[in-house]
């Protein structure tokens, strides 16, 4: 009973981690930049969603696609205007640049909106569904459903469409892709836009559960653990890792002593990286010299 309830809660939180980790994986595969600003993009999206729904009284179903589009376009512009300038520099430059951008987004949001938390209503808020013996909040079901749908859509997009295959080709070998007539730069921007939209979706789904708050960016750190557990650079791994981290957290909250729940993801991250850096579904670990 309780186990089942915990599992459902864990999966729904894990689905968010998976969504964030998926966005990180996409940009990492395309541009070899681990985007430390991803969590802040998510946070920005939550605030934009709040502004549209509460500030301008838009219905949720209009505000959701609008937020996704806005943030996606902003992320596209970010790659095109800023990230592209450091292509070819060591990975560290990408880490520093995205950390700087993350600080700027965080600062701008807190200057624009102020430090207090907010919340907005979704069509799912406050309803529950009985699934056999367990009671599940509709919001959690919506999250799991949305993540499943997005993952399936992404899978079809990346494997069955010309554009998706081109993105895969460019991620594997930029030069070869370029020589085959693929417009690699534009695709990289597109991937960043796509990842931005994914982050926006995660933000719009997560913030009704937590609150619309500056600290939403912390999801990024949990997703890094998911990314590592699933195997760095593997999209299926990101999904599996995200769900597992969600489950581990959910069970640690009940069965582990004290405040372990808050940090269990980081313990997993360290242990996996040190003992088993390849992760569950990762590619062979190594560096080209």
């Amino acid at each position, binding site marked *: 009973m309780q186990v089942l309830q915990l599992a459902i809660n864990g999966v729904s939180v894990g689905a968010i981690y998976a969504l964030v980790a998926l966005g990180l994986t996409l940009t990492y595969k395309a541009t*070899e930049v*681990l985007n430390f600003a991803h969590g802040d993009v998510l946070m920005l999206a939550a605030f934009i969603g709040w502004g549209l729904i509460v500030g301008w009284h838009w219905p949720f179903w209009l505000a959701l696609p609008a937020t996704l589009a806005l943030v996606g376009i902003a992320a596209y512009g970010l790659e095109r205007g*800023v990230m592209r*300038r*450091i*292509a*070819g*520099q*060591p*990975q*560290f*430059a990408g*880490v*520093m*640049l995205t*950390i*700087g*951008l*993350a*600080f*700027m*987004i*965080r*600062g*701008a*949001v*807190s*200057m624009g909106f*102020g*430090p207090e938390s907010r919340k907005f209503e979704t069509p799912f808020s406050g309803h529950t569904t009985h699934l056999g013996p367990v009671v599940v909040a509709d919001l959690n079901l919506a999250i799991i459903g949305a993540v499943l749908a997005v993952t399936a859509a992404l899978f079809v997009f990346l494997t069955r469409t010309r554009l998706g295959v081109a993105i895969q080709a460019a991620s594997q*070998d*930029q*030069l070869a892709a370029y020589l085959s007539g693929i417009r690699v730069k534009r695709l990289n921007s597109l991937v960043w836009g796509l990842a931005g939209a994914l982050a926006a979706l995660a933000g719009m789904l997560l913030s009704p559960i937590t609150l619309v708050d500056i600290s939403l960016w912390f999801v990024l*750190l949990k997703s*890094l*653990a998911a990314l*590592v557990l699933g195997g*760095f*650079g593997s999209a299926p791994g990101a999904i599996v890792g995200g769900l597992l981290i969600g489950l581990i957290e959910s069970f640690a909250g009940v069965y582990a002593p*004290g*405040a372990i729940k*808050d*940090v269990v993801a*980081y*313990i997993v*991250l*360290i242990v996996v*990286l*040190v003992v088993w*850096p390849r992760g569950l579904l990762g*590619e*062979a*670990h*190594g*560096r*080209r*010299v």
Partner: protein
Amino acid sequence: MRFAYDTSYRESRRLLRFASDRAAYALLAVLLAAAPFVLPVFYVGELTYLFIFALASLGLMVLTGYTGQVSLGHAAFLAIGAYAEALLLNAGWPLPASLAAAAALSGAAGLAIGMPAIRVSGLYLAMVTLAFAILLEHAVGHWSSLTGGFTGMAVPEPRLAGVSLGTPTGFYFLCLALLAAVLLALVNLMRGHLGRAFVGVRDSEAAAWGLGIRVPLVKVQAFVLSAAITGLAGALLAHQTKYLTPDGFGMMLSMQLVLAVVIGGLGSLRGAILGAILIGLLPSFISHLKPFLPDRIAKQFGLEIFVFGAVLVGFVLFEPLGLNGRWQKLRAFFETFPLYRRDTFRRGKAYMRSERYK
């Protein structure tokens, strides 16, 4: 352009080879020695903080700037040093012993983290250190019997041979002396065998192996050295703040250290000091600026972090060599005055360099 004409081996081994350099550093030393007697107490405290921050930046510079190992969690070592110092002084240890023990303990923690962490590199190491810092902050907060938990613990006054160093002036000279000693040691270390091994590991691990450098050993040495220096800075920071809480050693402090190192210019000790000065002064500069800004922006606490981010982005995009690179360019400009060529410092065209295994 100045050229050094050496007439003996001794001369070519000197740290400061030109009379003008020696004069400049002597002037700096005199100014720093006179500062606490001339400046108001507030500025003496600020300077002391800058010294401590510069010491911690030097620690991170050894690891990130010289050895190429990114740590996003160096505040953890500051915390270990600070708490060790407070606990040992409470246990009745004399100041020199407690400072040394704080550095040694932090170095030992660096060994414990470094041994497994060097198995991973690049982004993975960044993530491990980040996670370690979060875990440590959490552990310090929850281990109340030892650290006082989130309510914090007071730090005893530093005393040396019966004389109190708790006065602003006394503590100023303690920090200045330690900073100068560490800086001198590092300058010499970095031009010796070990320092060159660090740089070799940073620039190409394969080439370093080929030259007979034991890469894992060198990485662990860099990790321990870096953690020990940062721990020493932490011990001094404990006396500067006088009261320790886990929030004081959060992720923002780690990030400030990384910022100082990157903005100063990776791979130079001067850069670590310049970066620490800039990052250490930025918050008070911003608060001085606030009266001139529109109320709406000035009242929000996000301004500071925004400026930090903007400075970092600016440097990564426009001056990847940091303040030290800018300094060298300025210097070259004046030394070669009418003949300065901008292309001297132009980087070659960079292509996408994959760090993935194929």
